[in-house]
């Protein structure tokens, strides 16, 4: 089980630590609405969707620049 540990220290007066543990199994407890349900950086699904979107964005950019370079007419110097 992969767990991330976050320590939050209260700086007022008494020194105390609160540990917040998140894990893929607790994703069901995190409730997002609308688009954040599918695109967030906490749940497995959200992270996966962001990764796939980033890859698709990069692929589209490469495709765009490739097509632009093939379409642009070559200008001959006179």
């Amino acid at each position, binding site marked *: 089980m992969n767990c*991330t540990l976050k320590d939050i220290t209260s700086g007022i007066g008494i020194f105390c630590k609160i540990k917040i543990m998140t894990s893929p199994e607790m994703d069901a407890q995190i409730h997002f609405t609308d688009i954040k349900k599918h695109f967030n*950086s906490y749940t*497995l699904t959200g*992270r*996966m969707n962001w*990764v796939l979107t980033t890859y698709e964005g990069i692929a589209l950019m490469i495709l765009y620049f490739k097509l632009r370079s093939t379409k642009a007419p070559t200008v001959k110097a006179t």
Partner: protein
Amino acid sequence: MGLPIAVLIVMFPSILFPSPNRLINNRLISIQQWLIQLTSKQMLMIHNQKGRTWALMLMSLIMFIGSTNLLGLLPHSFTPTTQLSMNLGMAIPLWAGTVITGFRHKTKASLAHFLPQGTPLPLIPMLVIIETISLFIQPMALAVRLTANITAGHLLIHLIGGATLALINISATTALITFTILVLLTILEFAVALIQAYVFTLLVSLYLHDNT
């Protein structure tokens, strides 16, 4: 025979590990079995059922690299692990095997691994790219780490040995100091030989753990 000698050199360490063929074996085999059990228990502790199917692969890997590195410390011998081609040939298939295992059995988790949990929104694309690059650098780092460590050690021994020989006729005291350094360096290289084998195998084991 037409066989390159490098093939025989690579195959030679396997002769040093005879197969146990009795219930109670001789001292050599008993010691080797004990060492293998000690290493495998420690290394496979973190793995689940699926990860433990790689036990034979990981133990063979550490035994091969360890024995090859140690044999390379003999004078005038050839060390296959100084060749980057050989180390890449070990690192890339093993790393690719762990990655493909992860994508095959846990596709969502493997893809989600490219984005650390809790990343702020503006940093997401950059971090995905950085994590992808760091994934593809893993086999290169594995191979280059082993090559560089073993090559550097051998080079140092060669240079300091040459310096000791040259200094014998010039100044006996300096030659003695250089010889002492050479002895200490050789002891260090024995340790490095075993440590690098352990580090290589441990990292492959960790990549496997991330993907199973």
